C-alpha cells in the first residue's frame, strides 16, 4: 500500500499494546503479521491459525522450514511450547465459540458503525471470504490496521461502506498511520494521534464525522 516500513512498524507496535498476557490472537496478513515483533518479552500469547494451529511461533530460519507446518496463508511458521494442532472445524470452533480474544486484520473500508468491508472489490477481485467472516463476526475484539486513505486519496473510514460487507458492526478499533479510533455504540471516537498529525489533518482525511476523546494521547 505504499506505506514505509517505519510507519507499518509504528502501527503494528500500537496494536501490540492491545495484546495482554494469556490471550488467544488471530493475525491477518500484511501489517498484522508484524505485531508479534513488538510484543514485550515474556508476553504469553497463543497465536491462532485457521488451518489448525494454536500457538504459532516465528518464521523458521531459511533452510529449516517444514512444509507441513505453515500458517493459513501457506507460509512456514514454528510453534511455541504448549502449542497444539487440530482440524479446521476445531480451529473455527474456537472462533465461533468466542475463545479467540482478538483478531487483528487489514481492511478496504470500515464504517463509523464498525461495518467491515475487506473481502471483495466488485468487478476486480473476488477471492472469496476465507475465514474473514467468522473472525470478524465472532472474535471477541476486532482491530483493523489500515491506511487512512486508499491509493486515490479517498478515506477508508466512511459513513457507509460502498464495498460489500464482510460483517456488519464488528470492528472495535481502527489504527491508521495518523490516528487510533475506538468504535462503540456511540459511534466513532478519535482517542490517539500519531505525531506529527493534527486532529485537523485527520478530519480532512476521514470520510465521516467523529468525536474526540477527552484526553487524546499523542504517540511520538
Amino acid at each position, binding site marked *: 500500500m505504499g506505506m514505509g516500513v517505519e510507519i507499518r512498524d509504528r502501527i503494528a507496535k500500537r496494536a501490540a499494546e492491545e495484546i495482554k498476557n494469556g490471550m488467544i490472537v488471530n493475525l491477518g496478513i500484511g501489517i498484522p503479521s508484524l505485531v508479534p515483533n513488538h510484543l514485550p518479552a515474556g508476553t504469553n500469547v497463543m497465536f491462532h491459525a485457521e488451518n*489448525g494451529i494454536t500457538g504459532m511461533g516465528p518464521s523458521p530460519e531459511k533452510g529449516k522450514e517444514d512444509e507441513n507446518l505453515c500458517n493459513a496463508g501457506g507460509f512456514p511458521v514454528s510453534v511455541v511450547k504448549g502449542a497444539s494442532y487440530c482440524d479446521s472445524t476445531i480451529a473455527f470452533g474456537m472462533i465461533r465459540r468466542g475463545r479467540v480474544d482478538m483478531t487483528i486484520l487489514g481492511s478496504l473500508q470500515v464504517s463509523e458503525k464498525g461495518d467491515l468491508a475487506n473481502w471483495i472489490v466488485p468487478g476486480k477481485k473476488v477471492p*472469496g*471470504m*476465507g*475465514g474473514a467472516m467468522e473472525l470478524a463476526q465472532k472474535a471477541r475484539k476486532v482491530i483493523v490496521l489500515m491506511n487512512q486513505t486508499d491509493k486515490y486519496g479517498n478515506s477508508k473510514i466512511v459513513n457507509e461502506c460502498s464495498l460489500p460487507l464482510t*460483517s456488519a458492526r464488528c470492528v472495535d478499533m481502527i489504527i491508521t498511520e495518523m490516528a487510533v479510533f475506538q468504535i462503540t455504540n456511540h459511534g466513532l471516537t478519535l482517542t490517539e494521534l500519531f505525531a506529527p498529525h493534527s486532529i485537523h489533518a485527520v478530519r480532512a482525511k476521514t470520510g465521516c464525522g467523529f468525536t474526540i476523546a477527552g484526553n487524546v494521547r499523542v504517540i511520538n
Partner: protein
Amino acid sequence: MENTYNKIIEIDEAMKHFRDGMIIMFGGFGGIGTPPALIDGILDNGFKDLTLIGNDSGFPHIGIGKVVSQGRAKKMIASHIGSNPVAGQLMTDGKMEVEFSPQGILAERIRAGGVGIPAILSDIGLDNDIVTSNKQTCNLSGKKYLVETALTAEISIVFAKKADPYGNLIYDKSARNTNPLVAMAGDMTIAEVEEIVPLGSLDPDEIITPGVFVDYIVPSKGVNWKWAWE
C-alpha cells in the same frame, strides 16, 4: 507389508475409480496436506468436468491448483481462491463456476456430510447476499439462522503421514487441516500416505481418522511441487 484388508493399492489401481464429471472432495489448505500423487493421477488420466470441493484452490502449481489451472474443473465449492489467479480468471471468464462458503462453515458442512447429518444451522454471513443466496433460513428460539447443507462427494482424496493396513490415519502437524473431515465425507475415500506401517504399530490413542472411513491406501512419493516460499 501384509495387505490384510486389501486396502493398499498402487496409484494406477486407484485411478480406476475416477471418471469424468465426478464430484471430488480434497483435503488440504493452501496446498498443504493435498495428496500429490493422486492429483497427478487425475491430471495424467485426463479426467475433466470435475466438481471439486475443498478449502481453497491452492496455488497455480500447488495442490488442487494444478487440476484447476488445467481447466479440469467445471465447478468448485471453496472458501477462497485468492492464491490462485488462474482460478479467478476461469471464474471471471465463466469457465468455472465457484460457490463460496465461509471457511469454517465449509469445513463444518463437510464434517456434517461425513457424519451423516443433513445440514447445520449457522449465523455466519446472515447479512451477506453471497452467503445467503439460495439458502433456506429458519427461526430457532427467536433467532434467525441459515440452513447450511451438508457436503459429500463421490470420492474423497486425503494426504496423511502414516497409515496402517486397516487405513487408520495420522497426519503431520498443520497438514491435518481439512483432511480428517474430507476423509469422512466421501462415498469412497482414498488416502495417500507417506508411510504405511504394520497393523498394531500405531497407538490407538493417537489415530485421528479411524480406518473405517478409508477404503484405499496409496503410498506417496511425497510432494513434487515447489512451495510458494521456496
